[in-house]
Every structure is written in structure tokens, then in C-alpha cells.
């Protein structure tokens, strides 16, 4: 993935325009892509959510002047980073900004109360320039994505140009942790890999590894660790692009997993419309837990506690998704929206770990079921 965007050039252009407007006594307007569900388009051929042409216009006035000033201020810090080649996390950018303000009292009015405020500005810059946060040399924490495989070889080009080769089969039970820089990685398989399995729970992924899943099968196994981070999303996309192998997702059967975790992995999210292209893997299939698995394997499920705030919120979101989310509305994803409907109707949920109950004496039972489901194309 080449550097897609010249942040410096865009910044100068933006400031030029702002000054020109001011000089003419005209209110400057900053325009950013609207990153929300109502500006999300979904085309099954593209496979991920893309931005529509709605823009958010921030015109200079009493309520926006602070945000505008902060934007220019943070942009200046970022440009300095880009020039010097320094990378930072959002949290670090927050502290850099605070430090800058501390040493320059005239900037006091810009001060950030907490990191959310500076994150918001960074996101705004991305939405304005339609760039990735990484283009701003600003990286998120790499969370999740611990990867195990007997066949995968990763080649990394480091910032200084040095190369490193990681053979995952040499790592024992330790995982490979992908960095949020898919463009610097190249993948190779020492032997044909049959599929990639992404497990929602990092713990369960680990259990599968210790019981020999990756020894017995030619697979890539990775733990998502909840809602997939950019690292997980970019990494999955890379696997899809470079290895062209089937990818399956295995997680809980509930509204949250389906929408927040699986949909994000497969098609990206409304909040990250600009980056979905490189941070979603449209080929991922939902292996389960499927509603039919409950009967088929007699899995212990339980009722959704409707008076539980998080669970009822997830249900409400599911209802909204069926009405407004172009991803779930698309015919091609009918299988998935049917699951959502099932969840809404039955108000039951079933966890991925329930596979361990099928035959408690057989530790390999979950693996057997997974392989069985893949073999029988028992996925959505």
C-alpha cells in the first residue's frame, strides 16, 4: 500500500483557503466527510461500507471557532511529526499537545480536558483529508490479532528499510502480533494453507492452539480480542489479499458480536468510512455460533436479559441495523440479517465456548465441530 495522501500539501492548501476567506471577510468553512451510517453506502461487489457524498461543513462562528483553532493547532503538531518521521499514538499526541500548551500560555484556551477531545480533532483531520490516521503518523495501540500458524511466514520492512522475516512455526505457542502497518508486511505460506480462523475470544484461540489445532491443521488462527482493532482489521485484509484463502469468524451468537465485531471485520464501520477499504475483509464468513447449531449440538443458550442495559442496547441497535444499516439490508447479507431477526425474535444468545459442553470429556470436540462446520459449509 503506497503512501496514498500528501498530508503536507493538503494542509497548506487548507490553510491557504482559510486565510484567503478571512482576508476577504468571508467565513471560512472546513469540509469533512460525514462519517455516519446515514452516509454509508454498501455495494456487495465492493464488499465494505464506503462514504456517500454527504459533507459536514464547519463554518467559522462562535460555536466552531474553538474546534477550528484546535484543528489548526493539532495539524501543526502532526506536520512536525511527519517532517521528522516521528510516530505517535493518539494518547501521545494528546500529551504532546498538552505540553505545547503548557509552554505557550497564549494557547491556553485550546487546552484539552481529556484525550477524547484531542482524539476527536485527529479524527476530524482524517475526515477532512480523507486520510488514515496512520497517514498522520498517528498509530493506535495494537490490540488483538495474536496469530498462530504452522505455515505462515511474515516479511516485514521496517521504517529504516531493514527487513525481518518471521516464521510463525518457529514461535512455539507464542503468537505473532501484527502491527498496525499492513503496508510494511508481506505474507508467504511454506505450505498451502487451507483457511484462516478468527476467534472472537483470544482465550479460546489460545486454547485451540494448546490443544494442537495449528499442529493438526494447515491454518492461520487468530484471536480478535473483541471488537477488532485497526491492526486486526488491516491484518485480516492482508491475509485475504495476499493468501486468498477462506476466512472464517467464530464467535458468540448475539447482536453485539454480529454487528460490532463481525460486521466491522467484514465491511468496516460507519465511523471509519474512509479507511474501510484497507481495513475490512469482505470475504470473511460467519462460522458461528449459528442459531441452528444450538439445536444441532444441543448447546446451552440463555435468554437475553432485557433489563440489562448493555444487552437491551445491543438489541435496539440490532433493530436499527435492520432498518438503517445498508450492510444488513443488502440481499447478499440476508443470511446475516436473518440471524439478527432470529436474535430479536427469540431473545436468546449462545456463546462460542458452549462448544466445550458438547462432549466435556473430549477436549478436541470444539475443533471437531469447527472443522465439521467448514466441511459442510455450515456458515453464513
Amino acid at each position, binding site marked *: 500500500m503506497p503512501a496514498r495522501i500528501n498530508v503536507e500539501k493538503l*494542509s*497548506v492548501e487548507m*490553510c*491557504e483557503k*482559510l*486565510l484567503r*476567506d*478571512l*482576508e*476577504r*471577510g*468571508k*467565513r471560512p*468553512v472546513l*469540509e469533512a*466527510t460525514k462519517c455516519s451510517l446515514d452516509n454509508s453506502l454498501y455495494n456487495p461487489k465492493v464488499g465494505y461500507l464506503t462514504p456517500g*457524498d*454527504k*459533507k459536514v*461543513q464547519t*463554518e*467559522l*462562528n*462562535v460555536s466552531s*471557532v*474553538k474546534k*477550528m*483553532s484546535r484543528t*489548526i*493547532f493539532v*495539524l*501543526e503538531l502532526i*506536520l512536525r511529526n511527519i517532517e521528522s518521521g516521528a510516530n505517535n499514538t493518539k494518547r501521545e499526541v494528546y500529551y504532546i499537545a498538552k505540553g505545547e500548551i503548557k509552554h505557550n500560555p*497564549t*494557547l491556553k*484556551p*485550546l487546552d484539552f480536558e481529556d484525550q477524547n477531545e484531542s482524539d476527536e480533532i485527529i479524527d476530524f483531520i482524517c475526515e477532512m483529508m480523507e486520510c488514515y490516521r496512520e497517514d498522520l503518523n498517528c498509530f493506535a495501540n495494537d490490540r488483538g490479532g495474536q496469530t498462530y500458524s504452522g505455515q505462515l511466514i511474515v516479511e516485514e520492512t521496517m521504517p529504516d528499510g531493514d527487513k525481518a522475516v518471521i516464521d510463525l512455526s518457529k514461535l512455539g505457542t507464542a503468537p505473532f502480533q501484527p502491527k498496525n502497518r499492513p503496508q510494511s508486511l508481506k505474507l508467504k505460506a511454506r505450505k498451502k494453507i487451507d483457511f484462516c480462523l478468527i476467534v472472537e475470544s483470544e482465550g479460546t484461540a489460545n486454547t485451540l492452539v494448546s490443544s494442537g489445532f495449528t499442529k493438526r491443521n494447515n491454518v492461520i488462527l487468530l484471536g480478535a480480542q473483541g471488537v477488532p482493532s485497526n491492526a486486526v482489521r488491516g491484518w485480516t485484509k492482508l491475509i485475504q489479499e495476499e493468501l486468498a484463502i477462506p476466512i472464517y469468524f467464530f464467535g458468540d451468537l448475539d447482536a453485539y458480536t454480529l454487528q460490532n465485531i463481525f460486521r466491522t471485520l467484514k465491511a468496516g464501520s460507519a465511523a471509519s468510512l474512509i479507511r474501510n477499504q484497507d481495513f475490512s475483509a469482505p470475504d470473511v464468513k460467519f462460522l458461528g455460533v449459528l442459531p441452528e447449531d444450538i439445536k444441532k449440538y444441543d448447546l446451552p443458550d440463555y435468554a437475553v436479559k432485557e433489563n440489562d442495559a448493555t444487552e437491551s442496547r445491543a438489541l435496539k441497535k440490532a433493530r436499527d441495523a435492520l432498518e438503517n444499516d445498508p450492510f444488513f439490508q443488502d440481499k447478499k447479507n440476508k443470511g446475516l440479517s436473518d440471524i439478527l431477526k432470529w436474535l430479536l425474535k427469540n431473545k436468546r444468545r449462545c456463546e462460542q465456548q458452549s462448544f466445550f459442553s458438547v462432549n466435556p470429556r473430549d477436549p478436541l470436540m470444539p475443533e471437531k465441530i469447527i472443522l465439521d462446520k467448514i466441511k459442510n459449509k455450515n456458515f453464513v
Partner: protein
Amino acid sequence: MAKASAAITSSSSAEYFSKNLQQVGFSSYTKAALTTIKEAVDNSLDACEDADILPEISVTVQRLGEGSGKGADHIRVCVEDNGPGLLPEDVVKVFGEYLASSKFGRGRCSRGQQGIGISAATTWAQLTHARGALVITKTTKMRQAIKCQVEVDIKNNRGILKEKESYDWDRPSGVSCDFLIDARIQMQGEGGLLAYLNGVTLVNPHLTLHYKILDEDWVHIERIENTVPKIPEPTEPHPHTMKLGEFIAHSHLFGKTRVSAWLKTGFSRISDGILKELKEHGVKSSLLERAVSSLSQEEFKFIFMGIQKLKLMAPSTKSVLSIGEAGLAKSIQRIGAVDFFAVMSRKPTICDFKPVLVEVAIARMKDKGSEEESIALLRFANRVPLQFDKAGCAMTKAVVSVNWKAYGLAQPKNSLPLGPYIMAVSVVSPFIKFKNASKETVDASDELVEELRRALIQAGQRLSKHIRREVKEADLEKKRQHIELFAPILVDGACRISKAGKGRREKALEGLAKILGREAHLAEKELTEAIEHSEAALEKLAQVTGVLPAVQEEPEEQVEVGEQMSLDGIEEKKSKKEKRKGK
């Protein structure tokens, strides 16, 4: 006919009053000082008004040492006026005799009514310092002023003149009186000296006042009106406002006059037509032809009852006097730095069959009071400040009964509103009904309270415009400051990123100021619209409630929002929001 004469009459009561000084304002050391000053100043104002002189009064208060009584200071009070002065023979009556008054029962809106005030002050001085009043007086007829000491002969209710001597005084006429008393000086608070002096200033726009209290500097307050208020001629009493006893007492002034003539000339609103009606109600013609002095109690009662049954025209309101909105408006600015204010003068009206005129002035003060404190309520009866026992007073009741929140003031339940405001309420009437002898509370009759309420509501409506404007203005100013805070940061940042030079920076900042001007302009428009809107709403409310909104506009209505806010005077013709298509 025996019109109430201006001659000074006396009746014997010195003993009673000297034993009951607490009833006439000498119930504590602090009140003693205040009452002494108040009685003297009120007299000076009345005398000047009667003589058509623009009053100039000076008040000095000194502490000479410890007083004779426990906890008292030895205080010297001196009040000097440029009034008509008193003849030597009157001085002794005025300062030394009780109930010697030229104003007694005259049905005028004078401050003094009874002839008690200043003699009580003399008595107090005598009781606490064994010396009466030291008086200097000069009328225009006298070649030289005289200086004398007056004491009260308490046993006989007679004044005693002592140490009379002629005196060189540099003025055509006037009175100066000097009292040495036991007292305590309280400056602040509702019962304080300042409240009295401010109050007097407020309701007497034609007064020039100088005062020096204790170690404070001299304060000089110039008059802002150059005409002496015309005290309307008194009207004859209205029979429906009288009790039988008063009715009979009133007849004594008429002696052998025929009853019909007495009724027609001695009372207002009794005409030949009314007398005819009276006869139809069974009062015989022969009775009406008799001499007033020959009537028996029973006959008086018969006539009185007959008249009470008739429908009479309400009394005339000509006898009441108004301070006037213009006078109040200017006067209120003399008592401190005022942010904004509203005044309201009602037309004279009849309450409980007596003519009354209610006026209200409300001012937001810059350096008095606070948002958390109650407003300062100043009450006036015939232009005399009332400073005590406010709870039961008609004026207090009326203020509390108004919903001030509707006009933008905070107001706890059943209480006075809060804020740095002075609220002055004045009732002028030849027949003010006080609740007690010390004349501190006006009787709260339903009709009077309702009339006061109306005045207050109207003043509140006028005030609320200012308050809304102020809130909006503060808002506007905040917004402007907000933008100004960030503007240079924004422009400097943009200049650094685009490597723009100093010239462009200046131009951009200029442009920003223009944009701000427009924003202010827009906000100003919004403000005017809001005010117009609320006025329309008030008018509607008035139609429903029968309370008319304020008729006139205060001249100082034009607050310079425009000038203040438009930084450059540039107007925005159309505020068309530009919308551009996404790329």
C-alpha cells in the same frame, strides 16, 4: 366658610407625648437620631413647598462624645433650610408645643400632618441633654435673624423661649435648628440614615441636599428639577370617607350655617341634585334649612346615614400630587450608579374613596446590593420615606404579590425579589391611612394593594425589557470575547502552516473582525425581535388580565447596543449560507 386656616393652633398633650415618645419615633437611640433629622427635613421641605421656594437643605451630624444614657452617644444634629422662615412668636409654638401645626386636617399631601414631629425632637433633646432646640430663623420681613433656644413646658404644653438674641445670617430667609441629643448613628440598612437621605433625594427631584455625617466627607446632591412641585389645593372631604364622629366634628367649623349650605360647601360631591335625592330618602326640607349648630346627635346621624345610602361621585383626584416619571427617572440616578431603570407614574385614582397616586421606580444599581440579597425596597408616603415595620405595609405586600420572575428577577416564594435593585414605591394621598401612630406602615386595604400591584407590574414590564436586553448583551459580549480569544491562535497557526507573511496575517485578522461585526449585527437583530415579540405577548396578557401595559416609553430606552456591538458598522445584506458539493 371656614376654610382650614394656616394659623398655628395648639392643643394640650405635651405630657402625653413626652411620656410616649417611643410612639412618635423615639423608641431607640438609633431611631432618635433618624427621627430628629427626618422631622426637621420634612418640615423644611413642606415649608419650602408652601412658600414656592426651591429647597436647599443641609444636614450635619456630629458625635461630641459619650451620651448621658447607657450605650448612647452625645450627638449634635443640625438641619438648615432656605425656606420662608418662622416668626419669633411661631418658633416657640412650632418647637415647643405639641399639635401646633399649620397643616392639621387640611386634606393636603403635605409631609407633616399633625404638629407633633419637631416638638417631640425638642422634648427628646431636653430629656437627654437638658437643653431644647437651638433655632435660628429669619423671614424676608425680618431685618435680622434671631437665634434662640426653645424648650417644652411639658406640664402646660407651652413652649419656652430662652436666650433670644439677634443674629447675622447671610440669607434672605430660612430656619436652622440644632439639637443635642442622646442617640446612635446607624448609616446602613433599611433603618439607616443613608436610606432616609437617599429616599428623600429620590422623591424630591427639586431638592438640593448637602450632608455631612460624622467623619464622612460632605456629600452634595444637586437638584435636577427647577420647579417647586405645585401642591394641589385641598378638596373638601368626601362624606363617604368619613365616620359619624368626623362628620359631626367637621360641622363645628360651620356654626350657624344652614345644613344644606354646609353639606354643599363643606363636602365634595354634594350638589343640589344630591340634596333632592336626600329628601326623597326621607330627610325633611325643614331639617336641611336649620342651622348646623342646632342639630342634635340623632339628627346628625340621620342625615349622615341618609348620605351614606346615596350614590355619590367618587372624590376628585385633583388634590394628589405626582413626582412624575421624568423627575423620578432623573432623580434615581442621583442615589448611585444605575445600570438601567424603569419608572411608572399611575394616573390618580380612588382607593377606599380616597384619591391616591401611586408611582414606582426600579433601578438596577452598579455598586449596591448583590444577586443573592433581597432588593432594597424604599417606601414613601406623601414623599416621606418609611423605614420601619415594612412587613405589614401595603407597599411591601404589593411587591411580594407580584410575580417578578416574569420580568427576569429571581424571587423566592412569598418574598421580595432578589438582586442589586432599588425598588421605590410611593403613595401620595391627602388621606393616607397609617396602621399606627408612628406612621411607618400604610394600611393594606385590598383596593390600595391592587392599585400598587398594577403600578409595579407595569414598571416590571418596562424593566424586563432592560433585563432581557442585558442578558442578551452579556451573551453577545461573551460570544464576541470567545471568538476574539481564539482568532489570533487560528490565524497564526494557519499562517505558519501556509508560510504566509505578516501582511496576510493582519488582513486575515481584519477580515475576522468584520465577520464578528456581522455576527453582532445579526445577534442585535435577534435581540430586537425578541423584545418586540415579548411586548406583543405582554399586550395580549394585558387584554386578558385587564392590566394595561406601560403607555409611555422612558426616554433612555435607546441603549447603545448597535454602537457597542458593530465593530465596523458593516452590514450583512443577506446571510446566505454557502453550500458546496462534495468532491
